[in-house]
């Protein structure tokens, strides 16, 4: 780009010097960490993890099981049983830590990758597959598990979360850090550039809505690195909107738990929103349709493998909590069982009929649609016996 435009000084077009890749080593990134990649507990002046090792074992189990579910779903896609799958590989600690910090009355607004949070909320993993297999578009009732439908449009759910939180406010459901209600909105680093996310920040701020914005900065929005979304650390944006932001080691389940819990308490007691940036890494592809070798270096992945969210908990439990091999074997066996059930469940999902879907466009069905359904049903029936 050396061509100059007549009448305009060339320096106007000079590209701004941008970093070529995001910071790589954790030493360069300041965040809240309570468990190192080596599995050592460390102190932080503002945050602590005060629960016992049984809880940590529970986190290990959660993370291992959701990784296994995720692996199985990827395999199902590879075998043609799912149209697509969005893997959470590498983000287990961010999701389990934040998910386990939720109280039963808190409400979750996920993207399409929050399989770990869904797990924490008690959503049957099989329900998640419907969307990816193409038999439905979510179709669960958000009220059953306080877990809204997956949202594909990037960032749109942050506004839904904010509106929901404003409803909690109007219902006088906040005011106490333990018994109050909060809402948590998940989104990614790419979404942080969306207008909706920025509008949600403004709304939550000016209405002091009880919402936690939980950004999993996994460094990549499909092929675009974080430096295409921001020139400052994402959590610092919160200051401009007038509420606190905090960056946490997204691969540290103890820290994500502690930081999220504090943010949720703030929301529940009526002190307003918090932005949590969970600094993590998308170890897999964006989705099964994506090929990350086209745009990122394998060394990056190798580097992040050393920070694996599950391995560090295993190291901690083995070295410091005296947990025996049996425990890990049991979890692996449980994971295999869940994976087998998921596979069987997926394969036995009935194919829906388009005829049924005419009924769900409106609460109050229209005459036109009733007629259209009737015509289609008759048309479809005319092929019966022809092997269609």
């Amino acid at each position, binding site marked *: 780009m050396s061509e100059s435009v007549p009448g305009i000084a060339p320096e106007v077009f000079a590209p701004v010097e941008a970093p070529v890749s995001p910071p790589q080593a954790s030493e360069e990134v300041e965040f809240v960490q309570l468990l190192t990649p080596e599995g050592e507990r460390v102190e932080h002046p503002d945050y602590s993890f005060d629960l016992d090792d049984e809880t940590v074992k529970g986190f290990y189990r959660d993370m291992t099981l959701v990784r296994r579910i995720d692996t199985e779903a990827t395999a199902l896609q590879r075998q043609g049983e799912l149209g697509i799958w969005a893997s959470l590989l590498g983000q287990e600690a961010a999701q389990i830590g934040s998910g386990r910090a939720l109280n039963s009355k808190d409400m979750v607004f996920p993207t399409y990758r929050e399989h770990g949070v869904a797990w924490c909320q008690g959503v049957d993993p099989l329900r998640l597959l419907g969307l990816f297999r193409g038999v439905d578009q979510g179709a669960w009732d958000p009220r059953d598990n306080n877990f809204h439908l997956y949202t594909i449009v990037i960032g749109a759910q942050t*506004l*839904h979360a904010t509106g929901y939180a404003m409803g909690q406010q109007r219902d006088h459901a906040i005011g106490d850090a333990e018994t109050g209600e909060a809402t948590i909105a998940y989104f990614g680093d790419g979404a942080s550039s969306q*207008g909706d996310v920025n509008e949600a920040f*403004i709304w939550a701020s000016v209405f002091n809505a009880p919402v936690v914005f939980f950004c999993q900065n996994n460094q990549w929005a499909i092929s675009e690195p974080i430096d295409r979304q921001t020139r400052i650390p994402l959590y610092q944006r919160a200051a401009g909107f007038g509420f606190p932001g905090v960056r946490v080691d997204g691969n540290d389940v103890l820290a994500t738990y502690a930081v999220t819990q504090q943010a949720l308490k703030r929301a529940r007691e009526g002190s307003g929103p918090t932005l949590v940036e969970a600094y993590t890494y998308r170890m897999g592809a964006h989705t099964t349709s994506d090929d990350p070798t086209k745009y990122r270096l394998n060394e990056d992945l190798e580097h992040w493998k050393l920070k694996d969210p599950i391995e560090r908990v295993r190291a901690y439990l083995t070295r410091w909590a005296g947990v025996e091999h049996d425990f890990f074997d049991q979890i692996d066996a449980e994971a295999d069982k869940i994976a087998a059930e998921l596979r069987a469940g997926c394969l036995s999902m009935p194919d829906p009929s388009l005829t049924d*879907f005419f009924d769900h466009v409106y*609460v109050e069905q*229209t005459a036109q649609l009733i007629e259209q359904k009737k015509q289609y049903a008759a048309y479809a029936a005319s092929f019966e016996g022809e092997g269609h």
Partner: protein
Amino acid sequence: MAKISLGKGINMGLRAAMEADSKVVVMGEDIGKLGGVFRVTEGLQKDFGEDRVIDTPLAESGIIGTAVGLALRGYRPVCEIQFDGFVFPAYDQIINQVAKMHYRSLGKIRMPVVIRIPFGGGIGAVEHHSESPESLFAHVPGLKVVSCGDPVDAYWMIQQAISSDDPVVFFEPKRRYHEKAELDESVPPALPLHQAKVVREGTDATLFCYGPMVKTCLQAAEAAVEDGRQLEVIDLRTIAPLDLAAIFASVKKTRRAVVVHEAPFSLGPGAEIAARVTEECFYHLEAPVIRVAGFDTPYPPSRMEEEYLPDLDRVLDGVDRVMGY
């Protein structure tokens, strides 16, 4: 019985809905203290408080997106978009979220959201303040699209829209805000929300219209009497779903149809009505369905808007054409 304006009808309807259901919240830009730029929400914040009459940040996607969240929480948000041309930042939330939520959840989630949009031209405004984007919403499965044409309908239709469990885009004819009529609140609404209304009976041809064109068509029908023509005028009231039964019944009676709207000619509501009438009333028709509409240009600068907007003469020209077969 009091004589009220169309704008006042909506105001009174909003008030009645808010009194009847504490879950009804009204939200939009300048709707609180100011009472809206057209004063349609005047006095509501004073009486219902800032939690139910919410002055929002200037962010239309935010208005609709948070309304989705409030609806998920059990509220019935009534959103005001200040002007027709400003709805587009919210278009994604309306099309991808509001319209599809019921379908995506196989009926488990309802979106009782009303989106009020003052629309249409004729007020001498600058650009983006005179548009008729109703087809852009009527084409979207999951939305219902209505428009009121007189003060009594304004009062009742807004209440019916709010009580609908489906999302309703409610187009208000802004140049008719000051039209007046008698309203007797004790008389229940004559029709359900999605039924068309015969506002003038006739035998020679039917004028189909809605919103601001209802008055124009009534004037045209009155003028046509001098030419010895008895025109039927039907206020469609609902653009999606169309009240096809009422449309077909009238066409079968008069055998000639003219559709009138301010929205651009091509692919407007007139196109759908013409297609439906052709399919259903083919052997009853004496003439093709004629459309009298805005032109396929962006809305013009206001000095030219009288030329752009269908008026009495343009409607009568359409009648001449439909009678010429």
